[in-house]
């Protein structure tokens, strides 16, 4: 129990990456066409954080794992049907708007408030996990502000690995430029870790884990508190799809040698 940690993973829900997205204007600002019916998944980088958190919790008996997620209750329930089968966690849902256009500062305030109110959470043992960016807003801002609001000044981003030592210290590998990692050692919890991909594969679905999770997820969803996100002076001038469509030259009738010669010329051209 010496290294038992309390891990809170912040993870949003995002449209399935294979969906075609079309921005529209709604009474509440920009949004996506048919946003509520687009298939959704757990944010990919945050999902990596969740799997790493579950692995870390499993290696350190006595640890606890919460998943805090902000989104419309109906979409959260839909996504949790799948996510719940991956690893064991306790859901802390916040009933709020979907998508990447709401202000990150307001999102962070709602998340920090929810984390602060988790019963039984020992903040001295807290490891706050999440993706280093989301697949919606992709700002890399929310987790930092949540950490600041919780008074945590040891924060790490682009994390691919954490090694928790016997003495409670942990080593972290953060991505830096050029395909390298910065190696740091932190003197124990609390800390914030914004994950890149980590090293773990996606766990297989486990229906038993899913059933156990859903026993607490459904009541939690019913009790989810609504969160209204302030704009904080953020104003969208325009939201559009990129117009650039290239005229692709399809080359079908050249031999490999001829293609290679053309490519070498192209590579050498300034």
């Amino acid at each position, binding site marked *: 129990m010496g290294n038992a940690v309390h891990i809170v993973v912040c993870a949003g829900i995002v*449209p399935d*990456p*294979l969906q075609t*997205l079309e921005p529209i204007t709604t009474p509440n600002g920009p949004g996506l066409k048919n946003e509520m019916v687009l298939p959704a998944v757990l944010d*990919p980088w945050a999902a*990596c954080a969740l799997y790493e958190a579950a692995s870390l919790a499993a290696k350190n008996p006595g640890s606890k794992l919460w998943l805090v997620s902000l989104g419309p209750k109906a979409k959260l329930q839909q996504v949790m049907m799948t996510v719940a089968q991956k690893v064991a966690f306790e859901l802390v849902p916040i009933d709020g708007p979907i998508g990447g256009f709401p202000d*990150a*500062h307001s999102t962070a305030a709602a998340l920090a408030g929810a984390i602060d109110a988790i019963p039984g959470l020992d903040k001295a043992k807290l490891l706050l996990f999440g993706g280093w960016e989301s*697949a*919606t807003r992709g*700002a*890399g*801002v*929310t987790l*930092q*502000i949540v950490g600041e*609001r919780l008074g945590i*000044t040891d*924060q*790490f981003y*682009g994390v*691919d690995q954490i090694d928790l030592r016997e003495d409670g210290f942990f080593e972290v*590998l*953060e*991505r*830096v*430029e*050029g*395909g*390298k*990692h*910065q190696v*740091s*050692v932190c*003197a124990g919890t609390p800390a914030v870790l914004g994950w890149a*991909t*980590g090293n773990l*594969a996606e766990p297989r679905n486990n229906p038993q884990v899913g059933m156990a999770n859903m026993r607490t997820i459904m009541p939690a969803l019913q009790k989810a508190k609504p969160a209204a996100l302030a704009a*904080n*002076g953020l*104003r*969208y*001038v325009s*939201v*559009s799809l*990129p117009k650039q469509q*290239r005229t*692709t*030259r*399809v*080359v*079908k009738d050249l031999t*490999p040698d001829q*293609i*290679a*010669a053309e*490519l*070498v010329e*192209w590579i*050498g051209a300034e």
Partner: protein
Amino acid sequence: MESILVLTHADETGSALTKASLEAVTAGQELASRLGAPLAIGIISADATNLSKALPSAKILAVSGEAFAQSRYATDTAACEALCRAAGATIVLVPAGARFSRGAAGVAHRLGGFIDTHITAIGGTDTLEVTRWFYRQRVEAVLSRDARPWFLLLDAGTHAAFAGAGGSASVESVNVDLPALRTTVSGIRAPMQDAQTIRPDAKMLFVTGAGWTKKQPDGQIHAAEAGDLILGFLRQTGASLGSSKSLVDQGGEGTPVLPFLTHMNQIGQTGATPRHSKGLSTCCHGEEPHVVGWRFIADRRAISLDPNCGWTRGKADVVYVADAFPVIAKVNELLAAKKA
């Protein structure tokens, strides 16, 4: 009236500012000129004495000391906060390298300000408007904020690096009250030089897809040959290596396919969106590398066996319908002969 602060930091040698920092200086100069606003530049480094010589005429503020030689959230945020308070700026331009990306939002929060990141353009006429992408480079938005201070984290490669004559302004030293430090940076872990395949400054991005490890016309998988061809191409061209998620995941599942690939090579939805002037995609049929990963690649070509691949059509400038194995083998041969 607006006032502008550009935050910069030294590179890993400590003797020069990073390229991204100098790009932010250019952006700051342009913005200050357009708005008629005063410009200040803040430096974070172990020793700022010589770094200011590379900067234009402006108010120069510096936080110096051994604690600031390395990137660390607690020290970087404390330093940036002190520089921002000393400058009192309404607009803070920040270069989006690994160092400042991990702390700028925290600083904005401490100052009661707001931040927007991945800024690719600064414009507007009566008001300041900035451009950024949402949904992993699928949707582009122009936005504005009334609240100040407003932090703008500028994507690398969106402005030219400042290279003008240095100004003669003196450097004003700013003191920082550091909190008790609990994190020690023990160094940088890099792959062996031969295995370093991620090269942000390369002119070309070479993208590999899962087709390299699929069965070839003889019914066999030629992963070792694929690896040799890919590494040979990187050696000859100095290109940076990107990969589709599916190919990287194969490596992670323990299959001995292309052992030099890691998740750090991945481009697309959960990978990078690098900036290079040219990109060559091979054996890659997914949407993510072409739509998301290629967003900031200027000149794009692809080698694909599928003449109807919907993801290269309209995304690439040229698609060669061919088997990448003999093509890349011949390219390597021609490049080697050219060098000899």
